[in-house]
């Protein structure tokens, strides 16, 4: 596709070919860039226009570059080429603009998260830690995150995969297309709504039946249920996509051997699509592990460690970050940042592993 633009230049032509448009030599771009940077420095930090500041200078330099480029290109190459050049520059600069926050988040995380990156942090809970104590850790929160995400995965995977199997292998007619449609819609349900739903349904209505005092109680399991609501559509959707990529020939071959449909699905279709399905599941886990709002509503949070997700409040890493970030003690924010670093590391590892795994699949999209 990139070779297409050479069509005008490739004609073996006399020096003044009408088809060959004039092009700006490469050095002009550099020159315009340098000139606008110098001008911006002269105007803003030196001249003190509009308060100066390096951000303003950078913005000014980029704007200056775009304007100068447009003018020069218009004069030399014509209006259409000028537009093309400005559009190209804008498109590339949007990429840089988007990478800035990512870089900033990562740097801030490494910078602020370093301070409490010690053994105490990973081996201790917040039990017996007051606002005046420097120690404490996120051990109980890590346990909570792992258990809640793990339980949610245990519930979601069979149901999500089965739902996808229904859509792809069995579903026909209105029900199937309604389910497909609402799986997509459900991916957009805000996490806080999922939390409120589990609060209204599980914590306030069902949980009193399990408590000796008939009081509603929070638990890690309730958090897992909320995460299930969030993970279900994601898992169903990615599994559905992968199952669709399984060549029909494989299934037909299996049917031809007289193998029943359910077994064909379990033995032929699922294993073929497995790497892709696992990728989808891992991405869903990564997203669920970082959720705060629903866990905040239904798991309660606690400074103590609690291995039992079915009874009593449980902490999670994200709730821990939320708590410590708002804590009125100078020891709170460093804990929050280290916990954030831990959480992001966990999530990134899952994401990267999922992406690497997805490369191994033999099924090709499209």
């Amino acid at each position, binding site marked *: 596709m990139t070779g297409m633009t050479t069509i005008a230049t490739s004609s073996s032509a006399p020096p003044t070919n009408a088809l060959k448009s004039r092009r700006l030599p490469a050095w002009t771009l550099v020159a315009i860039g340098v000139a606008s940077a110098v001008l911006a420095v002269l105007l803003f930090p030196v001249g003190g226009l509009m308060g100066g500041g390096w951000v303003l200078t950078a913005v000014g330099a980029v704007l200056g570059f775009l304007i100068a480029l447009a003018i020069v290109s218009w004069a030399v190459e014509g209006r259409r080429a000028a537009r093309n050049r400005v559009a190209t520059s804008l498109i590339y600069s949007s990429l840089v603009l988007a990478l800035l926050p990512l870089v900033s988040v990562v740097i801030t995380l490494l910078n602020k998260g370093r301070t409490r990156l010690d053994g105490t942090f990973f081996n*201790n*809970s917040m*039990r*017996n*830690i*007051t606002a*005046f104590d420097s120690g404490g850790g996120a051990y109980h929160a*890590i346990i909570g995150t*792992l258990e809640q995400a793990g339980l949610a995965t245990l519930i979601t995977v069979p149901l999500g995969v089965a739902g996808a199997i229904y859509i792809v292998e069995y579903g026909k007619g209105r029900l199937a297309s309604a389910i497909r449609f609402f799986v997509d819609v459900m991916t957009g349900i805000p996490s806080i709504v999922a939390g409120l739903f589990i609060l209204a349904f599980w914590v306030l209505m069902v949980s009193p039946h399990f408590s000796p005092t008939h009081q509603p109680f929070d638990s890690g399991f309730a958090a897992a249920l909320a995460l299930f609501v969030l993970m279900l559509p994601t898992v169903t959707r990615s599994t559905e996509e992968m199952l669709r990529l399984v060549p029909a020939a494989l299934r037909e071959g299996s049917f031809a051997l007289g193998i029943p449909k359910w077994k064909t699905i379990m033995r032929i279709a699922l294993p073929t699509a497995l790497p892709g399905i696992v990728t989808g599941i891992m991405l869903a886990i990564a997203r669920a592990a970082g959720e705060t709002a629903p866990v905040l509503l239904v798991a309660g949070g606690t400074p103590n460690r609690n291995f039992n997700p079915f009874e009593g409040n449980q902490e999670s890493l994200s709730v821990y970050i939320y708590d410590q970030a*708002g804590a009125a003690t100078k020891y709170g924010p460093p804990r929050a940042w280290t916990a954030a670093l831990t959480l992001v590391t966990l999530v990134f590892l899952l994401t990267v592993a999922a992406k690497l795994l997805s490369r191994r699949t033999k099924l090709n999209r499209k």
Partner: protein
Amino acid sequence: MKLQRHGILAGLALTATFALAACGSDNNTTPAANAAGGSSSAANPIACASGTLSAQGSTAQQNAINEWVKDYQTSCSGANIVYQGTGSGAGQQAFISGTADFAGSDSPLTAADQPKADARCKTGPAIHLPMAVGPIAVVYNIQGVTGLQLRPATLAKIFAGKITAWNDPAVKADNPSATLPSTKILTVHRSDSSGTSDNFTKYLSTVDAADWTFGHDKTWKGPGGDAEKGSDGIASLLSKTDGAIGYVEWSFAQADNLNVAKVGNGAGEFAELNGDSAGKTIASAQTTGTGDDMQLKIDYRTTAPGAYPIVLVTYEIVCEKGNDTSKLPLLRDFLSYTASTGGQQAIATVGYAPLPESVRTKVASTVDNLS
């Protein structure tokens, strides 16, 4: 083969989880940053009951309770006491609905709520036990300014939005020697329902009803300003916002190293906030309440020389009778520790003033009779 690899991966993850589960601990034996933690041993009648207590309410006593819980749990590893600083209003409601075993509150139950709380206790009334005395600090963050002094009228005008810049003549008049910047004033108040707000607005409406026309309430009804959740929210905003002023319990001011303003008292002097000056105000407080129910009435216009006037008393609301038998031993033992001299000393270093001795002994004997 591929399946096998997944199996190995899963196995690794599982092993890692178990390894993690095995090596972590709940015990924080790190020496406390301040001397109070753990050192108050001799006078503590901790008998060690085990079980779990869950309580919630006032953030004003959060730091005190955490200190007590820490002392208690350090001695008794079988005890699990969780106190959530959700605000006095929420604590009372949680107590009434039975989700909290006791509530921490800076304001007594209202006449409407008292019968509901009594009903929750089944056989006995719900009573108030004064447990911690917390001065409310007026905290500020003005670049380059320390030792700020504020007359009650100035304070009321600032929070009522009638003074909007730090170099206002009224502020200058209170601080003749300070160089005040023209920074705009950002008042910070609680966004949640809070006994601290109630007490602070009670103070404002008592000392300067002309400027503070918003009465007193657990929810902040004043105009403008920034709302933050919990005393911790106010404190953490104050620590990083130039030009801000707010009110938190002294304890939070200490935990975050905030600047505390000197406040004018009824004797016409600017009183610095410390245990002594707060104690002088409490000494002049009146005890009210019937039977074992005890409430303290603070005189915000106290004319005692050197007295710091903005002080709140925070209560534990408990059932006098009719407590859950599985919770009772721990509840009684924990509260008798908090009402002991040792317990009261333990919180003196984290921003609270001890209860007057006459009140303390009465509370202690009431606690012993809880059933």
